[in-house]
């Protein structure tokens, strides 16, 4: 663990602050994600977790503070530019392309690998064709990994809530992230499914992705997979540490866990 902390972190947030009119949703938040790490970001409702995600991925411009990814300053870069650096996210509110099939959703996720000049679009050479073939194969493989192969050719609007969450992760994986950020990926899964999902996540590390940053309210999942946890409360950092430390932290218990901790 300590060895990991010494290396340059993959993602580093410095003093992030976000104000909406009179409301300060996030205030002076600073944390980092190292390569190979799974970090949990937790906190009460309205603590500012999703807002942090939005600032890190360029959907909001922070009022104050900086974001560094792989050593470059990406503060207020546009979302797609940040995605192209390998920082891929999912959304808290289910977001998929509803009218496309599961396979098409995931295939579309391969966009960055297949980017090409307009000329190549109109007059595709062998290279483009090969890239297209590879994308199709990779898409099928990812659908398989996420356990959606049964639904391969079903339009996404036919999926149930839980399946949609899995599809979202599949699409994000298709974009070949270095750091994958998931916002409540297990919401809507029951405890059993959440556990299986946690296992899947762990297998991704080091293979499909380098690091993970997860927002989640399912404590079993968070405690089970995270190497380190950052806790927000009222937009500010409340605590940071390994899962055990966090569980034992009375302030966290009071603000976040409630009776569950008692």
């Amino acid at each position, binding site marked *: 663990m300590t060895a990991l902390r010494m290396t340059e972190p993959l993602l580093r947030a410095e003093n992030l602050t976000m104000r909406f009119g009179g409301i300060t949703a996030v205030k002076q938040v600073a944390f980092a994600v190292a390569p190979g790490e799974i970090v949990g970001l937790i906190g009460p409702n309205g603590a500012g977790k999703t807002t942090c995600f939005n600032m890190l991925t360029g959907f909001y411009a922070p009022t104050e503070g900086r974001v560094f990814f792989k050593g470059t300053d990406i503060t207020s870069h546009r979302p*797609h530019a940040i*995605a192209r650096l390998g920082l891929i996210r999912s*959304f808290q509110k289910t977001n998929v392309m509803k009218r496309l099939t599961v396979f098409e959703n995931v295939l579309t996720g391969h966009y960055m690998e297949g980017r090409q000049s307009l000329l190549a*679009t109109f007059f595709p050479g062998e290279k483009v064709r090969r890239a297209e073939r590879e994308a199709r194969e990779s898409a099928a493989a990812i659908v398989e990994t996420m356990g959606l192969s049964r639904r391969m050719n079903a339009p996404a609007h036919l999926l149930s809530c839980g399946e949609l969450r899995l599809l979202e992760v599949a699409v994000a994986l298709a974009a070949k992230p270095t750091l994958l950020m998931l916002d409540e990926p297990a919401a809507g899964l029951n405890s059993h499914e959440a556990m299986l999902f946690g296992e899947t996540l762990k297998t991704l590390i080091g293979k499909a992705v380098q690091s993970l940053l997860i927002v989640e309210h399912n404590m079993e999942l968070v405690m089970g997979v995270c190497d380190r946890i950052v806790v927000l409360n009222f937009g500010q950092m409340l605590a940071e540490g390994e899962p055990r430390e966090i569980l034992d932290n009375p302030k966290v218990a009071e603000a976040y866990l409630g009776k569950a901790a008692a």
Partner: protein
Amino acid sequence: MTLERNILLALGVLAALLPFAVTDQYVLHLAVMAIFYAILANSLNLVVGYVGEFSLGHTAFLGTGAYTAALLSVNAGWPMWAAVPAAGVVAALFGLAIGAITLRLQGPYFVIVTLSFAEVLRIVANNWIGLTNGPMGLAGVGQGGIADKTVFLAIVLGLAAVTFYLSYRFVYSNAGRAAVAVRENRYVAQSIGVNPFGTAMQAFVLGAFLAGLAGGFYAFYISFVGPEVFRFSFMATIIIMVLMGGKGTLLGPVVGAVIVTLLEEYLRELQELRLSLFGLIVMAIVLFLPNGLMGFVARRREQRGDAPSLSPAIEERTV
């Protein structure tokens, strides 16, 4: 996707064989107009069906193309083979400029701001008498050149070939998928690295270019260009074609263009009742085939258990 391509090819061959089968110039004229409209409808479909934003200002590009070709022909004596591509290029440049402003907007705002551009251009064309001859328009475009309908048919078929080749490549490419992603869900698109603005721009400019080509052809074929090319009634015709045929497919607008062109002509028999009936038919089609004819075909195929390959059916009514 191959099915769609093959049907398009077959239609093209059929149209090419037409002059050998019929000598009636009126039928050939209708064929030329139908193909012209197919190009136009396809170019609008790139924006409506693939960017997913509804443009009411597509006549801006038709019009700039038509005026460009007309001016080059009348003032500089350019022949058709040079003036029509130039029309496409000028329209594409307009597309770039207009897109830069309008593509930042979405939904109804996009609808009305594109309409505004078309109207501004119409008013300019109507009043910049020095350049456009104002309401008098530019007459005698390409006069003394081609007069034969079969030649025009060949030319418009060539343009259609270019149009559908480019559109087909675009739609079934990575870039086309990106456009669909933006249409379906802007947030997801951005999070997988798609630049919504850039992607929309590509489709928009391609649409503008193709509409410009069609406009250039129109100028030479009708041999007169006036401010009405920017008019909303023109726009309405194209919209009806795209939506009636089914947006978001390559085949739909072609089908729509052929049907509407023929319908408008054959309803002539009904004299005064003609347009009322046309309005009723348009309404009936929406009510009974809400996703256009191609949507209907796709739905039937889906129900028979074939893979849904033509257009995604919409089934989001219930919840």
